[in-house]
C-alpha cells in the first residue's frame, strides 16, 4: 500500500478545519492542521505536504505574503480558501503563486474535486518535456506547433496557439488575466485585458462546440480562466 498523500490545512476557524480534515481523511488523505501562518510554516517544513490549503484571512499574516515566502522554497500546489467578496485578494494570491481557489461556503464534493485535480497535476508537471498535450478530441504537438481535432488540423494564429498552449499546459488550474497576458504577450502587456478577452473569444470560436457556453476554456469571473481538459469535471 502506498503512503497517503499529505495535505496541510492552514485555517483559523476550528469548525472549518474540523469538517475539511474529516472530509479529506475520509478520502484517505493525511491531514495536518494549522491555525495561523507561522504555525503553518512550521508544519510545512516538518511534514513536507503534497498540497497546502490556505485561508486568506489569517490572524497573524496576510495569506498572499505567506504564499510568496512559501514559493521561495516549495512548488507544491496551493489551494486558497477565501470569502466571496474578495476577488482582488484572490487575484493577488493567484498571481503570487497559488494554484486554485475555493470560495466560502463550499461543498465537500467541490473541495475533493479541487484537491484531486491539484494532486493529479503535481507529478505530471515534472514531465514537462512531453511534447504532446491531449484534451477532449484535440491534440497539441508542441514540436511542430500544430493543433488538430480528431487528426484534422486546426488553423490557429501565433497568439491563439500560444494562448491555447498556456492554458492547456496548466489543466484545471486558474490562470489570472495577468498571468496569461505575461505568458503570451510578455510583461509589458500585463494591463491590456481587452487583448486577452478578444483572443479568448477567437480561440473559443475555433475549439468550443458552443462558444457561448464553453466547456474547455471556462471563465472565472473577475479572476481569469480555467482550462478544463475533459468535458466532465
Amino acid at each position, binding site marked *: 500500500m502506498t503512503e497517503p498523500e499529505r495535505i496541510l490545512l492552514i485555517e483559523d476557524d476550528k469548525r472549518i478545519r474540523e469538517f475539511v480534515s474529516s472530509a479529506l481523511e475520509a478520502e484517505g488523505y493525511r491531514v495536518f492542521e494549522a491555525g495561523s501562518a507561522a504555525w503553518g510554516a512550521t508544519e510545512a517544513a516538518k511534514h513536507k505536504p503534497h498540497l497546502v490549503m490556505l485561508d486568506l484571512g489569517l490572524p497573524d499574516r496576510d495569506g498572499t505574503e505567506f504564499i510568496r515566502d512559501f514559493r521561495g522554497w516549495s512548488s507544491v500546489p496551493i489551494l486558497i480558501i477565501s470569502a466571496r467578496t474578495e476577488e482582488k485578494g484572490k487575484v493577488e494570491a493567484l498571481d503570487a503563486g497559488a494554484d486554485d481557489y475555493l470560495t466560502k461556503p463550499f*461543498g465537500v464534493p467541490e473541495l475533493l474535486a479541487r484537491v484531486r485535480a491539484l494532486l493529479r497535476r503535481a507529478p505530471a508537471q515534472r514531465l514537462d518535456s512531453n511534447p504532446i498535450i491531449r484534451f477532449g478530441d484535440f491534440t497539441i504537438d508542441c514540436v511542430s506547433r500544430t493543433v488538430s481535432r480528431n487528426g484534422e488540423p486546426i488553423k490557429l494564429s501565433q497568439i491563439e496557439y500560444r494562448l491555447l498552449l498556456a492554458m492547456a499546459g496548466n489543466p484545471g488550474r486558474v490562470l489570472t488575466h495577468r498571468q496569461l497576458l505575461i505568458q503570451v504577450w510578455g510583461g509589458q502587456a500585463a494591463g491590456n485585458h481587452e*487583448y486577452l478577452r478578444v483572443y479568448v473569444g477567437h480561440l473559443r470560436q475555433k475549439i468550443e462546440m458552443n462558444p*457561448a*457556453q464553453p466547456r474547455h476554456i471556462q*471563465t472565472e*469571473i473577475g479572476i481569469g480562466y480555467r482550462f478544463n481538459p475533459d468535458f466532465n469535471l
Partner: protein
Amino acid sequence: MFFSRLIGKRLSLKGYVVAAFYILAGTLLTAPLRDVLDLSNVALLYVLAVVLTGVRYGRGVAIFAALVGSLVFAYVFVPPHFSLAITEVQYLLSAVIMLVVALLVGHVTANLRTHTEVVEAQAARNKALYEFARQLTATRSSEAVIDTSLRFLERSFAARQVHFVEPEHFDSAANALADIALIKASLERKQLLTRPTDVPAIVVAVLPLLPAESGHGVICLQVDGSQLETQAQRELLETVGSLVAVALERTHYAEVAQAAELRHAGESLRNTILSSLSHDIRTPLTALVGTADTLMLATTLSPEKQHALLYGLREQAQSINQFVNNLLDMARLQSGNVELNLAWQPIEEVVGATLQQVKSIADTREIGLAIAPGLPPVMIDAVLIERALWNLLENAIKYSPEDSPVELNIRQLGEEIDIAVCDRGEGLPTEDVEALFGLFQRGHAESSIPGAGLGLAIVKGIAEAHQGRLWATRREGGGSCFHITLPLGKTPCLGLEEDA
C-alpha cells in the same frame, strides 16, 4: 451720479433749443399771413407750441416757450408790427392772456409728464419685483434662493460684491465689505443702512433679512449712491430684502420637512429590513436546527430518510447563503461608493460564466440562449453584471413552472445593449411594476417561495451603477421579460494581429 446729471442737463438744453425752433418756425410760417389770420388764432398756435414742448421736455422748457412765445407774439403780430410797444389795451390783454394760458398749460402738462414718469418707474420696479418673486418661488433650496437674489441685485441695482452673510460669519474675515457695527445697527433698526466708501459716489449697503427664523442674515453689497437716492429706491431694496427673507424661510421649512421625511423613510426601511430578516433568516434557520436535531435524536431513521433530511439541511444552508450574499451586495451598492472594476469585454463571456453557475442549481431546467451575432464588447464590471444576470435568471427559474423554458436574449438596441431574461411565469402585477424593483419588495408579500425581495433591487442598483437601467415587460402568451439595458459606449480600437 455726476454723469446722470450731465445727461439731464443736456436733455433740457435740447428742449430749449427745440422750443425756440418751434416758435421761430411757427412765427416764420404765420408771419406772411398776419393780415389774414385773427390775432387770437395766432396766439393759440403759440400755446400749442408750449403744450408740445411741455409734454416732451417738462416745466422749465414750457415756461421758457411761454415767455419767448409771448414776446415774439407781441413783437411780430401785435400792431405796431416789429415793435414791443403795444398801442391798444385790447392787444395788451391778448398778449397777457396768452402768457398766462401758456404758463398754466405748460405747468399742467409738465406735471402730467412727471406723474407719468413716476408711474412708469413704479411699474418697472413692480415688474422687476414680480419677476424676482416668481424666480424665488421656483427655487428649492436656500442656496438657490441666495444665488437668485444675488444675481437679481447685481442686475437691477448694478451692485458689485453682493454677498449673503450668515449670522455666524458676521465677524469673520471673509466679510471685509461691511463691518460688524454696521450689520448690527442695520439688524437692530430693521432697515437698510449705507456707509460711504473710499471711492466717491460708491456706498456699501447692508440689507437685513428680518423675518427669517432660520437666522437673521444680511446681504452686503457695494452700489452706486444714485441707485439709493430716492425713498422709492430704498423701499424697493428693502422689499427685495423681505422677499428674500420669506423665500429663505420657506426653503428652510421645506428642508426641515424633507429631512423629517427622509428620516421617516429610513425608519420604515429599517422596519422592513428587520421584519424581512426575521422572517427570511429565521425560517431556514428553524428548519436547519430542527433537521439537525432530528438526525441526532432519531437513531432509527432509514438511511433514505436520513439522506433526504441531510439534503434538506444543505438546501436550507444554501438558501441562507444566497440571502446573505444578497444582503452584502445590497449593502455594498447602497453604501454609494461601489468602485466599478470596468473593463471592455464580450458580453458572451459573462453570459457563459453565469449559465455555468445556473446549471449548478438548475441543471434540468431548459435555458434558451439567443445572442445576436457581432455584438460589440461592453465596458462593464463583469463580477457585478454576473450577479445581476444570476439574480434575474434565478428569479425567472423560481417564479415560473418547472417545465417551462427560461430564455436569455441579448441584442443591440441602437446605442445600447439589451439583455432580456424571459419566463413563462405568472407575469407582472397589473400596476406599479416599478415598485417590484424597490428594496424588500416582492410580487406577493407572503409567499412560499423563499426570498427577501432584494434580487431586483440589486439588479437595478447594478444596472444604474453602469449608467444603464432595469425594466420589465409583459410577454405575449403569459410571463414576463426583465431587461437590463446598458450603454455601449465607444469600442476601443485594438491593435490585433492579422494572421488569424
